């Protein structure tokens, strides 16, 4: 599962019959720091998410499970709308050197 932001929508009249009635959203994956990362994907919507909302998505075969018992050919589905995120970074910035491993230390 990953975080994303809804950045657009897609309309299609001609669809596979098993996709009829499904909403399609364009989602930009995000890092936990809310920075865009990776390519935008087209997701089906199982929650009713709207423009600009932060959501989380599931990828793979499991993406079709929210629509059971209907068999919907989905490989990415929005399964939740994010209310808030708590993120605690490690105290040390990534890449900072451990002072115990300084060169020349005996």
């Amino acid at each position: 599962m990953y975080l994303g932001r809804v950045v657009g929508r897609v309309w299609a009249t001609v669809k596979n019959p098993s996709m009829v009635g499904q909403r399609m959203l364009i989602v930009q994956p995000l890092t936990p720091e809310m920075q865009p990362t990776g390519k935008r994907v087209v997701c089906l919507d199982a929650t009713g998410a709207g423009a600009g909302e932060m959501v989380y998505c599931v990828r793979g075969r499991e993406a079709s499970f929210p629509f059971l018992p209907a068999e919907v050919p989905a490989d990415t589905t929005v399964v939740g709308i994010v209310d808030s995120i708590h993120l605690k970074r490690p105290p040390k910035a990534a890449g900072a050197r451990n002072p115990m491993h300084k060169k020349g230390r005996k």
Partner: protein
Amino acid sequence: MILARVVGTVVATRKDPRLEGKKLLILKPISADGKDEAGYVVSVDTVSAGYRERVIAVAGSSARMAEGCKDTPVDNAIVGIVDEIQLD
């Protein structure tokens, strides 16, 4: 699912019997604003898409859930023809 443009067809005489009668198309993935992205994919067409049309393709085992692809060796299927894309 990805957005893609149909750029060609594939013809194969010798293939798995379960693929007989299925139309195979070559897709070029595109971004939401219509620019080409890297690579190509061969996809089974379930919606009678045509050359240069923008389509939605589903990848992975979910592709087999598309109508007409049940129990077939398919990992990429075209499931929709795009009318419109709206970016906020």
